[in-house]
């Protein structure tokens, strides 16, 4: 869907290029997270895709069209754009904000109104309550919901998101990430997502591109990045707790063993002690935390309807950590650019 080839950009008056010979291919429907320390060029790359920044050389093809041969205004109307500061228009109601691109595209008011209500509902805001309100009446989290709805308005196949949850308090952020994940999966948009938060990258990304000084260091699925970091830089970047992060990607159901000899006892315990059961869709990181707090090494895995899926033992959690994990590499602190 997005093919970046040999992209280079150096800003006037800077010593080294912000983007340095980058080649990256993003498949249709994927969430590609661009991540790296500040100054790694992640935002610049994102902004080149909708021509907010003009590259020095290289090419970017979005959906078979070379962006340099597409009118920037027309290009941007086909690409959703969400920024950390949101940038809602304060003089327009929530409905008018969401209607921005559809109106630029000349949709009929009837169609615009239907779409606005549809999107407000999608991002979990009651259209009856919020349609006519103004941005200043919203909380930070609500503003970004509107920001996302506005970007989705004309149903663009591609979305660019620059740290959309960066300025939102941690509790609301987690909540928005979860909801956003659901919406993204349902809509199958191709998304370029910029963040500096590795946990967010692992949670939301189908693929993670780790960048350093404008070049790609590693590009792969979150599990791959966590289990086999290509070098000390990536390893240090994902953190020493990468084993735990990996556990967060595996559901309890996936690691559960079918009813084993110990099952009877576990099931018996589970029926008495709710702290010894875990939901099937919970992840192994939560399962591990629960084992540690309740002082047990066996949890009964249950589905939401209450049926038992199997049992989860500390040994099976540990086995998951070891799958594919390379021998530890000595981390060279100089490898981490400030």
């Amino acid at each position, binding site marked *: 869907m997005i093919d970046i080839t040999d992209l280079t950009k150096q800003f006037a008056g800077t010593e080294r290029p912000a983007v340095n010979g980058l080649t990256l291919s993003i498949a249709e429907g994927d969430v590609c997270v661009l991540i790296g320390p500040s100054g790694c060029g992640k935002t610049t790359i994102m902004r080149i895709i909708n021509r*907010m920044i003009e590259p020095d050389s290289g090419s970017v093809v979005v959906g078979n069209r070379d962006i340099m041969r597409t009118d920037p*205004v027309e290009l*941007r109307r086909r690409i959703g754009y969400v920024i950390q*500061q949101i*940038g809602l228009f304060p003089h327009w109601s929530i409905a008018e904000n969401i209607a921005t691109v559809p109106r630029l595209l000349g949709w009929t008011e009837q169609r615009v109104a239907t779409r606005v209500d549809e999107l407000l509902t999608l991002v979990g805001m009651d259209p009856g309550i919020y349609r006519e309100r103004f941005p200043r009446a919203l909380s930070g989290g609500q503003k970004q919901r509107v920001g996302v709805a506005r970007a989705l308005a004309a149903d663009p196949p591609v979305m660019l998101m620059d740290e959309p949850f960066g300025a939102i308090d941690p509790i609301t952020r987690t909540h928005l990430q979860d909801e956003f994940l659901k919406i993204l999966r349902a809509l199958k948009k191709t998304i370029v997502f910029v963040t500096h938060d590795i946990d967010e990258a692992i949670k939301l990304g189908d693929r993670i591109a780790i960048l350093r000084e404008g070049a790609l260091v590693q590009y792969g699925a979150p599990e791959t990045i966590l289990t086999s970091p290509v070098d000390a830089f990536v390893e240090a970047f994902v953190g020493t707790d990468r084993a735990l992060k990996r556990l967060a990607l595996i559901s309890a159901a996936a690691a559960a063993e079918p009813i084993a000899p110990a099952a009877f006892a576990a099931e018996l315990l589970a029926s008495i002690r709710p702290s010894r059961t875990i939901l099937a869709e919970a992840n192994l990181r939560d399962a591990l935390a629960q084992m540690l707090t309740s002082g047990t090494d066996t949890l009964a895995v249950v589905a939401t309807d209450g049926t038992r899926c199997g049992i989860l033992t500390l040994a099976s959690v540990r086995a998951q950590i070891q799958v594919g994990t390379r021998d530890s590499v000595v981390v060279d602190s100089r490898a981490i650019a400030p």
Partner: protein
Amino acid sequence: MLLIEAWQFLVTHPGRFFHALATHIMLSGGALGLAIAIAVPLGLWVAHRRRAAFTAITIANIGRTLPSLAVLALVMPILGTGFAPSLFALTLLALPPILINTYTAVRQVDVDIVDAARGMGMTGAEIVRKVEVPIALPVMFAGIRTAAVQVVSGAVLASYIGGGGLGDFITAGIAMMAMPQLLVGAIPATLLSLGTDRLFGGLQKLLTPRGLRPE
């Protein structure tokens, strides 16, 4: 006593009074209209051009410090006397506040809002029309209000260079020590200034977009 005499002067010379009032309003209205037509587009333009902005704003700031009478006096040797030179001088007087406020108002619009607008595919003209001007409007209009009041009061001085208006009664009144005649010019001129301020204050509130009005 003086007020009654002034009233008597007015009713005995209605033609002269209404002619002067009409001239006064035409002079100020014309000058304000011209100044808006020049300073608003210029202000919008320089707000997007850093280098031009510096020059324009410096000139405007110098212009703002010039006394009204001095502007009129400076115009006379070049353009002579009458309605047109007065109109020109008053327009000059009204330009700085409108230009400075338009520029400041547009520059104050949050850069993130403009970035979002551009990123969604608005053209430069659409950004100005749909985003910058509506958000800048209250501050822009404050400049227009200042200019309007300045022009309406400044128009009294047009009489010195033969521009006519209510100032004619004042200058004649002073020259002949005729206080009633002086008041026939001074009172309506004062009321006109106050009325203009009120009118533009009301318009300013009316033109402020709902989402930007104080709750």
